[in-house]
């Protein structure tokens, strides 16, 4: 059975169908999850996609983290389920406390919409299982608040525990330590500012994002088989 990827939709989310299209093209089954629901249903992975959840009012992710679905996402993550936050989804996961740190306005105050180059740093995460460390990827960004920041202690822990998943080759936004994406201690929750779903087809100018989504589907597939085994 194809792994099922739940894609969370808040009012103002706008990348959910891009993610579902990319997941389906790679052999998964993408389904939307409404933010007002309290349960995820039969899901093997969760993606919190990009957009402007709740208008980004107060701070990006500040209101979305209180949506009913987020408690279920937190439980799913705590049970080891793969959870990926892309762009605004990364902001939501930091506000929800599922990932450390925060995303500030870009250095230079410009909204950045362009292709970037990233290096894969940490492997064996929900997005980089089977992807070699040092792999260089071309994946676009599209954000105003992607400037990652955290305390010195958190940064030291991220480095020591090999939890910086991606670094920009040429830092576009002032992000601390060139961080483009990080993971939690268990490595099943990953947040990143670049959009893998927008680099998942040759028509889009790069297929490098498909590498990452394939990793997510393989991790989700494992979860899927375990779920079916438990159910059987």
């Amino acid at each position, binding site marked *: 059975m194809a792994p099922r990827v739940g894609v969370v939709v808040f009012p103002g989310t706008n990348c959910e169908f891009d993610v579902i299209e990319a997941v389906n093209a790679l052999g998964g089954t993408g389904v939307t999850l409404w933010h007002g629901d309290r349960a995820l249903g039969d899901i093997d992975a969760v993606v919190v996609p990009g957009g402007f959840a709740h208008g980004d009012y107060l701070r990006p992710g*500040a209101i979305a983290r209180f949506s009913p679905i987020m408690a279920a996402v937190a439980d799913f993550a705590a049970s080891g389920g793969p959870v990926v936050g892309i762009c605004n989804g990364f902001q939501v996961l*930091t*506000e929800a406390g599922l990932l450390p740190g925060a995303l*500030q*306005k870009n250095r230079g*105050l410009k909204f950045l919409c362009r292709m970037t180059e990233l290096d894969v740093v940490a492997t064996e995460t929900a997005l980089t299982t089977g992807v070699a460390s040092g792999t260089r990827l071309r994946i676009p960004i599209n954000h105003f608040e992607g*400037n990652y*920041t*955290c305390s010195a202690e958190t940064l030291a822990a991220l480095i020591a525990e090999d939890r910086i998943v991606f670094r920009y080759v040429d830092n576009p936004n*002032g992000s601390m330590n060139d961080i483009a994406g990080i993971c939690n201690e268990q490595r099943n929750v990953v947040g990143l500012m670049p959009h893998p779903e927008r680099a998942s087809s040759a028509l889009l100018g790069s297929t490098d994002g498909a590498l990452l989504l394939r990793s997510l589907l393989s991790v989700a597939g494992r979860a899927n088989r375990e779920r079916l085994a438990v159910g059987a």
Partner: protein
Amino acid sequence: MLFEVHVEVRLRAGIADPQGATIERSLPALGFEGVSGVRVGKSIRFLVESADEASARAEVDVMCTRFLTNPVIEDSVVDIAVASVGAAV
């Protein structure tokens, strides 16, 4: 009792402030020399009904920690005063 609350949300000391830096760089171009330390924050005002000032302050402090600020990068300064007559909305 009704209290008027003013919450000033500020970036913590040491956290880079891209908006403040941009404003600071712009001021000399307009002829304002000698300005430094520009920091941009948010100002949030509201009314709260509470038994007394201490309980109002306690409630606002929780609001700040859970919602109005992101404690990773922001802190807050809270002013509370008994609402003046006619402040109710």
